[in-house]
C-alpha cells in the first residue's frame, strides 16, 4: 500500500503543520486565560485598595519559589529537546523526568498554599470570606479560579510529559521525529508564561 504513488503522501509528515496546529491551540489557551485576565483587570481597576489588602494574605516567598521551580522546569524541558536533537536518548529522558519532578514540586507547594488558606477559612463561599468587603471576595475568587485553572494545566502537562517519556523510551520520539516532544514542550512553556503573569498580579501587589 504505502509504496504506491498516491498513498505515500497520506503518511507524509509535515512538521511545520504540526507546529502550526500546536501554536493555534496555544492561542486558544492564551485566550482562555485572557478572558480571566480581563476579569482580573476590571475588578482590580474597580477595587484597587481591597486587592492590596487581600494580597497580603498570600505568601510571597512560596510564590517566588514556585516561579523559580516553574522557570527551571521550562529550562529542563527545552534541554530535553536539544538532547533528543543530538540523539542523546537517556539525557533527554533525564531532563523530561526532571521537568515532571519540578512540576510535581510546584503542585505540592500549591497544595500547602491552598491548604493553609482553607485552614484560615478563606475559600469560596466560606463565612469568613463572605464577611469581607466585595473587593476581597473578588480577589480570592479570581485567585482560586485562576491558579486553580493553571494548576489543572500543570497536571495535564505532567501527564503529557510522562507520555513523552514513554514515547522517548519506546523510540517513537527519535532524533529525526521529535515533533510530539516539541509540541509538549510548547504547551509546557505556555503554562510557564501564564504563571509569569499570574505571579506578579497576585503575589506582588502588597
Amino acid at each position: 500500500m504505502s509504496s504506491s504513488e498516491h498513498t505515500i503522501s497520506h503518511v507524509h509528515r509535515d512538521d511545520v503543520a504540526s507546529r502550526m496546529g500546536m501554536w493555534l491551540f496555544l492561542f486558544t489557551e492564551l485566550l482562555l486565560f485572557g478572558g480571566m485576565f480581563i476579569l482580573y483587570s476590571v475588578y482590580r481597576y474597580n477595587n484597587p485598595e481591597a486587592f492590596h489588602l487581600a494580597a497580603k494574605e498570600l505568601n510571597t516567598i512560596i510564590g517566588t519559589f514556585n516561579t523559580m521551580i516553574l522557570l527551571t522546569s521550562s529550562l529542563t524541558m527545552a534541554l530535553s529537546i536539544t538532547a533528543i536533537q543530538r540523539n542523546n536518548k537517556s539525557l533527554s529522558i533525564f531532563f523530561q523526568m526532571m521537568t515532571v519532578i519540578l512540576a510535581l514540586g510546584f503542585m505540592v507547594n500549591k497544595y500547602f498554599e491552598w491548604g493553609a488558606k482553607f485552614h484560615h477559612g478563606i475559600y469560596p463561599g466560606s463565612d469568613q470570606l463572605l464577611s469581607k468587603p466585595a473587593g476581597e471576595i473578588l480577589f480570592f475568587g479570581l485567585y482560586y479560579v485562576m491558579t486553580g485553572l493553571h494548576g489543572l494545566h500543570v497536571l495535564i502537562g505532567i501527564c503529557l510529559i510522562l507520555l513523552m517519556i514513554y514515547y522517548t523510551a519506546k523510540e517513537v520520539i527519535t532524533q529525526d521525529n521529535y515533533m510530539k516532544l516539541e509540541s509538549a514542550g510548547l504547551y509546557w512553556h505556555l503554562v510557564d508564561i501564564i504563571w509569569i503573569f499570574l505571579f506578579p498580579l497576585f503575589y506582588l501587589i502588597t
Partner: protein
Amino acid sequence: MNSQNKNEVSYLEFQGKHKGLLGWLMSTDHKRIGILYLISLMIFLTVGIIFGLLMRLEMLTPGKTIMDPQTYNAIFTLHGVIMIFLFVVPGLPAVFGNFFLPILIGAKDVAFPKWNLTSWYLYVIGGLFAIVSILLPGGPSDTGWTFYIPYSVRTGTNVTFALFAAFILGFSSILTGLNFITTVHRLRAPGMTWFKMPLSIWSFYSTAWIQVLATPIIGITLLLVAIERYFKVGLFDPALGGDPVLYQHLFWIYSHPAVYIMILPAMGVVSEIIPVFARRTIFGYHFIAMSSVAIALFGSLVWAHHMFTAGISDTSQFIFSLLTMIVAIPSAIKVFNWVATLYKGSIDVQVPLLYVLAFIFQFTIGGLTGVMQGVLSIDIHVHDTSFIVAHFHYVMFGGTGFGFFAALHYWFPKMFGRMYNKKLAVRTFWGVFTGFNVLYFPMFIMGWLGMPRRYYDYLLEYQVYHVISTIGSWILVPSLLLMFGYLLYYVLKGAKVTEKNVWGGETLEWQIDTPPIHENFINIPTVNEKPYEYKSNDLETQFSEAR
C-alpha cells in the same frame, strides 16, 4: 496495482480498515466526516424547527394556547441553544468546509484528519449534553441561549448541562478552525497562490480565525457561570460584588464574532455559486476576498452593541456604534460585487441560484435593519423587541440557513453522485421562501410597535401580526420538512450522476470524479488560473456540457 484500484473507488464505497458502520464512525476521511456532520446537523435542525413551530403556535393567541409559561421559557432557550450551537455555528464549515475545503485547494485531506474526527465526536457529546439537560429532573434550562447572569446562577433548572454542552461544542468548533487554518497554509496545491484560492476558502479561513480566537473566551465565561453556581466564587454575582455587565461583555466578545462565524461561510458559498450560474467571472475577486478578512477583523470589535441598554458608558456606546457602522461596509461590498457579477451574465436559474438570490434579498434586509440597531437612539426603541428577533432571523436563517440550503442543492450531486428532482426542488424553494418571509416580516412591524421578545403573553393589538407570523410557520415548516424528505429520498433513489462537472463550474471539485474518490485526486493538480475564469469563447461548450 490492486491498491491503486482500491483508492480510486468512490469515497462512499471505499473499504478501509473498518467495514460497514464502523467504516464511517472511525473514518478520518474529511468527506465522510462531512457527511457524519450533515446527518447529525440535520437531526438537530429538525428538532430546533419543531421547537420553533411550537413557539409560534403558542403565540397564536394571547395567554395560554398550548403550553404554560415555564415550558415556553424552556422551549425558546432550547430553540436558541440548538439552533446556534448545534446548527448555525458548526453549519457550513463542519459540513461543506470539511467536505470541500481540501478538494477546493487541491489537497487529499485536511492537515489533522484525526483531530477532525475528534471534533465530530465532541460535537456529538455536546449534543448529548444538550439532550440530557432537557430530560433530567429540574427541567430544561430557561435562561435563553445567552445565559445572562444573575438569573442563570439562581434558576433551579439544568443550566449546568446546557453550559457544558456549549463549552464542549466550542472545543469542537476550535478543532475545526485550527484544522482549516493549517490546511489552507500547508496543503494548497502547487500553483495555488492566496489570490488563486476560491472565495469560499477565504471565507472558511477567516471564519476559522474567529473560531480559534473567540471561542475560548466564551468557553471560560460559561465555565465560570457553572463554577459560580456551585462554589459561590462571586465573579459575576452582584450579591457577592461581581459585575453582571462584565459577564455580558465576555459573553458578547465571543458571541458577536460568532455571528460572523455563522454568516461568513454562507457568503463564501454564495460567491462560489453566483459565477457558476451567471457563467461569468466573479466581479471584484480581491474585494470579496479581502472583505471576508475585514469582516472577521471588524466583527471582533463591535460586541458591545448588544449592550447599549445595559448601562455601559456613553463613550463606549459611541465607539461601538461607530464600529458597528464600519462592519456593514465589507458586507455591502460583497453584495455589490455579487450583483455586479450577475449583471449581464447568462443567468441559468437553477435551484442553488434561487436560494442564493433569496439569500441576497433577505441578507440585505437583515443587514440593513442591523445597521439601524447600531444607531443608539433606534436601538433603545427596538431593544428586546421582536424587531431584533426578525433581524437576526433574516440574517441567520434568511442568510446562513438559505446559504446552507443553496450549498446543499449545489453540491448534492457531487457529494452523493445522485440528482434530486429539480422541479420539486424549485416548488419547495418557493414554499420555503414564502413561508420564511410571511413568518418573520410581521415581527419587524410588531417589534417596531413595541412587542417585546421572549414574552409569553401580549396585548390584543399585536394579535394580527402574530397570526400572520404563525401562518407563515405553517407554510415554512412543511416546506422544510418536504425538502429534507426529498433530499433523503434522492440520496438513496435519485438518478445516478457520473459526469464530473454537473453545473459547469470552474473550481477544482468539478474536475474530479462524481462522487469523489477516496483521496480526491489521483495526482495533485497544478493550478495556473484564477478560479471562475469563464472564457467567453468556450462558454457555449461549457453550457452544453453542463446540460
